[in-house]
């Protein structure tokens, strides 16, 4: 693993930010629109229901979902960007190793996510005076769990694209969307039909959102839930990386040139 090669990939994906509105809108525009929309909606819900913690729960859910979205998007979108630019052969005919690519896109996702998070947190706190620090240090494991979820979704999407080609590029946007309802992001798990709850319990983010809602309602930390979340997350991340590497090998068997 060479640091200069990871730096090269950082340059590759940070340079376009200077002039690409597509990328900036992903990082800034849509998260801000979401924040405004859900911020006002949650405020209205809190006022009409009389439950102040509804607003906090919804705003935190929004913040956390943005972390997943950004983390996954950096991985699968960076791969699709190389395909759109006919650059896959260029890149993988250099000394760059697959594991260096993996590390660099994971690190890039954290950098870009931090940027997005800083902006929307400022807006949330500034406009609705939401006390996001209410969760204290628990925010750190919550964020770590969300980032890990984003990574494994990203690696699965990227693996699918490598295996089946750009015709499957829609998974970059649809796969995280499919997980959204099962994660109990905006409503409690018990509101779900029982059979679907089984699926939800296999999704690591469900435990985090449930814990956050419990904390916001004045409850205590559920250690078992956190353990389940991290257990599932690490298992899925390992499987997703395995699938990505396998898809890369499959793709090299057919030739990366087929993406040109």
């Amino acid at each position, binding site marked *: 693993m*060479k640091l*200069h*090669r990871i*730096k*090269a*990939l950082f*340059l*590759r994906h940070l*340079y*376009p930010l200077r*002039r*690409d509105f597509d990328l900036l809108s992903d990082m800034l525009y849509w998260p801000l629109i979401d924040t405004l929309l859900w911020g006002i909606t949650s405020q209205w819900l809190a006022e009409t229901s009389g439950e102040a913690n509804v607003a906090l729960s919804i705003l935190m859910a929004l913040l956390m979902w943005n972390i997943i979205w950004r983390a996954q998007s950096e991985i699968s979108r960076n791969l699709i*960007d*190389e395909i759109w*630019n*006919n*650059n*896959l*052969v*260029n890149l*993988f*005919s*250099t*000394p*760059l*190793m697959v594991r260096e690519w993996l590390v660099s896109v994971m690190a890039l996702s954290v950098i870009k996510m931090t940027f997005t998070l800083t902006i929307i947190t400022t807006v949330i706190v500034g406009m609705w005076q939401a006390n996001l620090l209410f969760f204290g240090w628990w925010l750190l494991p919550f964020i770590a769990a969300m980032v890990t979820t984003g990574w494994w979704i990203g690696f699965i999407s990227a693996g699918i694209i490598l295996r089946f080609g750009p015709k499957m590029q829609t998974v970059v946007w649809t796969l995280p969307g499919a997980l959204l309802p099962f994660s109990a992001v905006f409503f409690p798990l018990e509101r779900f039909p029982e059979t679907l709850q089984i699926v939800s319990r296999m999704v690591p983010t469900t435990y985090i959102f449930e814990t956050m809602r419990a904390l916001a309602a004045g409850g205590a930390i559920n250690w078992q839930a956190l353990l389940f979340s991290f257990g599932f997350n690490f298992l899925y991340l390992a499987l997703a990386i395995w699938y990505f590497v396998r898809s890369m*090998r499959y793709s*090299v*068997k*057919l*030739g*990366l*040139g087929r993406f*040109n």
Partner: protein
Amino acid sequence: MKKSPLIVQHLTKVFPPEKKGGDPFTAINDISFELKAGQILGLLGPNGAGKSTTISMLLGVLSPTKGSIQYFGQDFAKNKSGALQHVTFASTYIKMPWRLTVWENLKVYGTLYDVQGKVFDQRMERFLQFFGVWDQRHKTMNMLSAGQTTRIMLAKAFLPYPKIVLLDEPTASLDPDIAHQVRKFVKMQRQEYGVSILYTSHNMAEVTDVCDEVMFLKKGQIVAIDDPLSLARSVKTTRMRLLVKDGLKRIVKFAKAQNLPVSIDDREAIIKIDEQKIAQFLAKLAEENISYSQIAIDKPTLEDYFLQMSQES
């Protein structure tokens, strides 16, 4: 004796069938060759011969079904990253990210090979000045013409002091003067740094000019490896051009009677004939009282060899 930096042995690539029940496709069938230190080896063949497949395998972006590739005495499959530190490529058909400027793109590639700082700046200025694209360095790639892009790709390939460069039709989209500059550059790099180069091109005059040796691929197999002139000389048929004032039709009739391919260009009869049979043919023409005012005999070129090999089934 110095060991060749690239040794390919029994390389084979079989692609799986595209549809269930279909047949697998053998793109490369048991080829072996060496690229010697400081050599420029031409890789020729008609479309579908397997040139791109070979280059892809040499770059590690396509895995071989069988056989081995050795770079600098080491198995490429086991030391891909280490080998590719010294092996680069440029192709007319591969692009670079269009949202990055020329300079940014080259910076990314320089950093990948750990060519950074002043070394990078000096080397890039030298290359971009040489290729006449220095003024384009702050333009994004989508603003460049095909010819300018090709020159940037060449700068990318020679940036990290490579020991081996694979060039896939490096002059395909260039004007003759720029193509000449590229050939000059390639020869200069070989002379100054002893770079070994694998060179594909559809311009046979260029291959004859640049390459020390030529390897001819056909249907995934090597059918010949030799120097360009020897390959050209192996073509027995020459083109004899007879300028005829009167009696063009008689000449055509006579050539056809001798089973010789003949075509007409204005007042010229162009006859394809074995060099050794020319004297006999001209004597017979004289016997038949068929006269011509001028005669020219075109020696076979590498292009004739290419055409002959491509047409043979």
